[in-house]
């Protein structure tokens, strides 16, 4: 019986350690705006709240370079992003040597309307980004909002375009 309790305790301990490691690694850490341009912290009376961006690769198949750039409003107030044209964001793609190989706005025209996007508390605002097909190799995608909001929410992701097998990407900031 004692053996049973010892094994159970060990399993619970191991489970706890795995949960802690997992939570530490994958969950978004609260950051201040001085730490990174990708998020900002609003300190309220009772809790920390933040507006931050994420950049995730969605494409899993060969040459499927789809990403989602999302701005999250986890504050208690609506966040307004004022845009001065049809352009909502800018991105830059660099190859493994750091050479700039694609800029979103290059070769594009934008409507000259003044608009705004309001993100309600707890809501998100997502832009889907589809890159042009890329040859196999390592790349870095850098995305930032072009709104006149105080934060550009710059996000960078490294990703790899592989041959016929699979590809993978990881957010770095």
């Amino acid at each position, binding site marked *: 019986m004692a053996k049973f309790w010892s094994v159970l305790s060990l399993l619970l301990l191991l489970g706890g350690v795995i949960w802690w490691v997992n939570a530490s690694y994958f969950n978004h850490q609260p950051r201040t705006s001085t730490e990174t341009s990708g998020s900002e912290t609003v300190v309220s009376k009772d809790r920390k709240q933040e507006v931050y961006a994420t950049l995730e690769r969605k494409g899993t198949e060969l040459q499927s370079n789809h990403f989602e750039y999302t701005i999250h409003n986890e504050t208690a107030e609506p966040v307004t992003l004022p845009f001065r044209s*049809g352009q909502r964001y800018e991105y830059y793609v660099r190859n493994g040597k750091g050479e700039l190989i694609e800029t979103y706005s290059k070769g594009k025209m*934008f409507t*000259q309307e003044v608009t705004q996007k309001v993100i309600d508390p707890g809501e998100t605002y997502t832009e889907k980004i589809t890159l042009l097909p890329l040859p196999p190799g390592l790349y870095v995608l850098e995305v930032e909002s072009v709104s006149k909001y105080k934060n550009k929410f710059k996000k960078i992701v490294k990703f790899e375009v592989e041959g016929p097998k699979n590809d993978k990407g990881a957010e770095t900031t």
Partner: protein
Amino acid sequence: MKYYQYTAILMILIGSIFFSHAETAQAEANEVKIIVKHKDKVTAASKPSSFPVEIISTPKEEVANKVAALKNDPDIEYIEMDTKVYSQGEIPNDNYYDKQEDTLEAIHAPEGWGAFQEKKLDEDTVVAVIDSGVQLNHPDLKGQLLEGENFVNPDQSPEDHYGHGTHVAGLISALTNNDVGVASVSLGKTKILPVKIMEENEGNVSDLIDGITYAVEQGADVINLSLGTYNYKFALADAIQYAQDQGVLVVSAAGNDNRNETLYPAALEGVLAVGSINPETQSKSSFSNYGSGIDVVTPGDGIWSTYKENGYEAMDGTSMSTGHVSSLAALLMENSPYLTGKQVGKLIQTSSTKLSGEFLLGNGMIHAGDTLKNVKQYQRISGSTSVETSVEVSHEGWERLEEKELTINGQTIKGKFVILATARDFPDSLAASPLASYLNSPVLLELKKDISPSILKELKRLDASDVLLIGGTNALSTEVESSLKSNGYNTHRISGKDRYKTAVAVNQLIPFDTNKAFIVSGQEFPDALSASGYSAMNGYPVLYVRHDRIPGVVNDYMKAENITKNYIVGGSVPVSEDVENQLPDDNPLRIAGDDRYETNYQMHRIFGNDDARTIYFVTGRNFPDAMAAAPLAVQSESPVMITHENQKVITSKNIQLFDYREDYHIVGGTVPIPAPYAWEIDETFYR
């Protein structure tokens, strides 16, 4: 009869009255009236109301042929299309007008509508909206849209799923005065060519280039580009250049980044770059770009127009301002179909109202009223009569008079001189120009027996002291002279018993130091006009002769002044070979062409100042405007070219003589030089 039978008869009667009215209205709608003016003694001084005109009603579809036939009739002075006139006080009944009122008032749209005369009746002006498409069945754009093209999904229609393109299209040509929706500056008179290059808010430059090429091929008159990029592309610049070469006006948004910079294609040469202003604050919209790249601005905050899904929305941006400018361009093209795209852009810019403030905003706020009015006034110095034109020339050339000395009958007079001559008959007045040029004085012209108030006003403005009256009392009455005296001016009448003696009397006032003289006919005015400017510039007197002999007074003058070298201006009809043989010069140079216009050209070719920057154009059919223009032209050693709308070839040749030309003026009203021809001169001048 029973009650219902009476009712039926009554209904039939009412119906027949209604339908007969409807038929009449339909017939009138299908007919166009052409105003025809037959040739008679048209002078610059004539009032339009005194012209005998004929009104010819023609079915719409036959207008082009009828106009062509009338243009070939040598007995017709000019033809004009009848026009619809819009009352300035009339406010469109569109139910969103109250939301638009401040914006449309700020750009003086109602004033433009008051000045608008619809003349483009045979085909529609087309504005290409290269954008996110246009809602194809929007009720306020019904009948306004051409088929268009979708460059994003070529197998689909250019339907707008985003809203921006529909908003811009409504600004340009929403149906106006149709009880619903919004009004447009163009009064809905223009057709929209929807060219879809964006599904939503962004599009590729490559599609834009295709869209521009397509719009030009489809016959667009204006291309509206409420979009832009900060990246220069050679291919885009080439596409814009192609459009401009085809006579298309390109209007584009300057950008919304509050930068001292302009987006492309707005920043490209010849593209009308449009910024935004907030009429409430009378300053730049907070978002609008600014700087030297901006050409004009219009309100751009909270602008109401059509929107997707049959809607109406207020939007902000230089996109919206661009729509206003394209709409004004279309209105102007409907008013004056002879204007090129470049000229439309120039008129909009030069008619805008400069704005003060810390930001450079080009020519300022567009002004629809002035833009339409300036079609007739651009670069023109004119008044309602030749008298008023001479006053306007004086205004243009003389801020104040210099004090000069003149010896008359042995007595030297010091004063500020103005020349007064008659506009009625040329013989007594022709000598006025050389004297005015010598004194650097304006020539004011009088028509009436009594002095005109405008002349008295101008003499006062100039602070003149002495008035030189050219000609006898038949030319300028004793009443005119006494009125001048009673107003405190010293008067001096310069006259002889006939035109030849008057001309010599004038020449004797000018201390020419030369042995050369121009010899011109005293019986016809055109060649004398060609000579008068160069008389002052070269210091040669102009001597008038008869067709067949030299008057004794002229011979006496040549002997006394030791004139031995003669330039005969004109052919052997005005100045015969007999006269040529009687001149003191054994080998006089005859400067002549087949007609007065050719002779004028030859004078400029031989005597013209190669470095002249300005050219003055006057009618070759009458003398007063040329006479008033000559002293003004002499100030800058500029040529005065006589012209007429049936003398385009020689006028063009004449213009090309002056390689350094920068600027021109037309002296005289729209009767001697009609606006369409004036704009042809403009096109030739800057070619």
